[in-house]
């Protein structure tokens, strides 16, 4: 998979369980499991990161690329205060004394909308609500002013009203800090409201890439179309009554995904001759890219194999 991410931009990576989105996120931080073999290139401001030794990755992680994930509880040491942990995170990357680090910690907590940041410093993680824990986690992730934030299902464990607050906080941080956001989620609602571009993953691959507006206006890949149709938006007219437009079949896991054919073919309503014979490339489809024969190899579009080096 290939993509670019600009400063201040939010790129959403959307997909269901087992599509590979979390593994991809870990690879960006050099955190793939030992059994994984990672190939390809990851460049940050033009500097090659892939193949770096672990100590180089440690410098990059937190300082230049930070990660927040679903369960902020597991990011914190339960027996140490929020303040002590953010101060520690600041001092790992910066030569400041304890007092200076504390000032930065308070500043970060304020920036993420933590009410009463001074008091927040002395709170223990388990004493905080889910929403405040996620804010504290974000404050820690921002401790050393990273350029890129990878947010892996950051609001999945939160209530709807609180999740909306956190996503709006991301929007604000992009505007104020020029933070680049990689938003990894299964939630199409957050993609629609909080990203500029989106990548749809299925069975380990990108099946569609588009501007967010275009993705929702004209979804190209049959999987994207099915996904959008199967979600209940409150404002969507209930044309089907109680019925949802479901995608038949099951989500493949990476070990058993179909090979030598389009991996979505077994579930695809638009399946035709080439789909069972070979794997489609990413083809240009209007302003989007879609991994589907409907748009390539002489059908509606042109092959776009030279798109990226």
């Amino acid at each position: 998979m290939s993509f670019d991410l600009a400063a201040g931009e939010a790129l959403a990576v959307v997909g269901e369980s087992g599509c590979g989105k979390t593994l991809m996120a870990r690879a960006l931080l050099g955190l793939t499991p030992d059994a994984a073999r990672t190939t390809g290139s990851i460049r940050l401001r033009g500097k090659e990161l892939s193949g770096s030794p672990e100590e180089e990755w440690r410098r990059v992680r937190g300082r230049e690329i930070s990660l927040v994930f679903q369960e902020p509880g597991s990011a914190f040491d339960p027996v140490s205060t929020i303040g002590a942990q953010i101060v520690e995170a600041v001092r790992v990357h910066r030569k400041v004394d304890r007092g200076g680090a504390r000032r930065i910690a308070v500043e970060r907590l304020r920036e993420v909308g933590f009410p009463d940041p001074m008091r927040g410093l002395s709170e223990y993680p388990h004493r905080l609500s889910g929403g405040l824990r996620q804010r504290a986690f974000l404050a820690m992730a921002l401790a050393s002013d990273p350029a890129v934030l990878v947010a892996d299902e950051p609001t999945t464990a939160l209530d709807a009203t609180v999740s909306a607050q956190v996503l709006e906080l991301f929007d604000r941080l992009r505007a104020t800090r020029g933070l680049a956001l990689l938003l990894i989620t299964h939630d199409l609602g957050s993609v629609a409201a909080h990203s500029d571009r989106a990548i749809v993953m299925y069975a380990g691959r990108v099946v569609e890439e588009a501007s967010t507006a275009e993705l929702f206006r004209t979804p190209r890949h049959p999987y994207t179309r099915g996904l959008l149709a199967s979600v209940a938006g409150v404002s969507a007219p209930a044309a089907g009554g109680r019925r949802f437009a479901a995608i038949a079949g099951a989500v493949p896991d990476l070990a058993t995904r179909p090979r030598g054919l389009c991996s979505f073919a077994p579930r695809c309503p638009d399946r035709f001759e080439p789909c069972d014979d070979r794997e489609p490339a990413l083809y240009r489809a209007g302003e989007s890219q879609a991994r589907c024969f409907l748009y390539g190899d002489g059908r509606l579009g042109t092959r776009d194999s030279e798109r990226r080096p």
Partner: protein
Amino acid sequence: MSGNPSTPLLSARGLVKRYRLRSGLGGSRETFAAVDGVSFDVERGETLGLVGESGSGKSTTGRLVLRLEEPTEGRIFFEGDDWLALSGAELRRRRRDLQVVFQDPNTSLNPRMRCGAQVAEPLRVQKLASGRDLRDRVASLLQEVGLSAETAGRFPSELSGGQRQRVAIARALATRPRFVVCDEPISSLDVSIAAQVLNLLADLRERIGLSYLFISHDLAVVARVSDRIAVMYFGRIVEQGSAAALVSQPLHPYTAALLSAAPDLDPSVHRARIPLSGEPPSPASPPTGCAFHPRCPIARPRCRDETPPLAPVSDGRLAACFFPGELAPPTR
């Protein structure tokens, strides 16, 4: 068995469930009400959606109806009978009419038991079938939920999440219940699979006239599957009404805020989200007056002092708010 069609299938009246607050050594004598005076009816063939965020008391309400826990106060009538008065063999016998589908089939199914045996279990326990008849019933139940008869010989681990939830539904249907409590039945499923399971529940409702209490945090899903909706906040129902009316014209400011936080899949529509500060209250320090007032954009002094009762507003709609309908619904 009373089957008077004019009485609701299920009625809950003034349900209260108090728990002891967990604090310090030896526990505390203080209690809080996870469910605080909840009343509702579910008619035959009807789906009542129960929506709320974590800690709202929606799942506890479901557990009280199922008698997995006993309420501290209140009454429940099932088919006109005093449901809480039943015990022993009589309760076991009547439980067949009232079944449940939980959120996570991974924990509600036994990983060491073949799926067929799990679907058969309620039939065996209730002595409703045995031998050849039992095997046939299991096969037809599996078929009813869209699984092949071979699934009976499989272990849950050999199935996908969606298939496992279908097995759990087949098991719930085994005793031919009239009423099924669905507690977050799709929350552990992928989007594309969740849609299949919701369609299955809708099919079953039409085919065998099931009634559902559909418990979920997802207002968009609840609005789609329910005839009527009850919105819960901090142990109470704050709004109740027909699904269509509640979604198009919310009366309670919390409902309006929930609606504005629900996903809208059109990025060109920039909806004004109703900003709610803070988070749901903690049981350790319950707010005075209306439990929603600390987060409410239209709260007045009165809301801090008095608890608004759930009262009729119009056309069978109820709201627990002194200023119902005042907070404009989000524009779409």
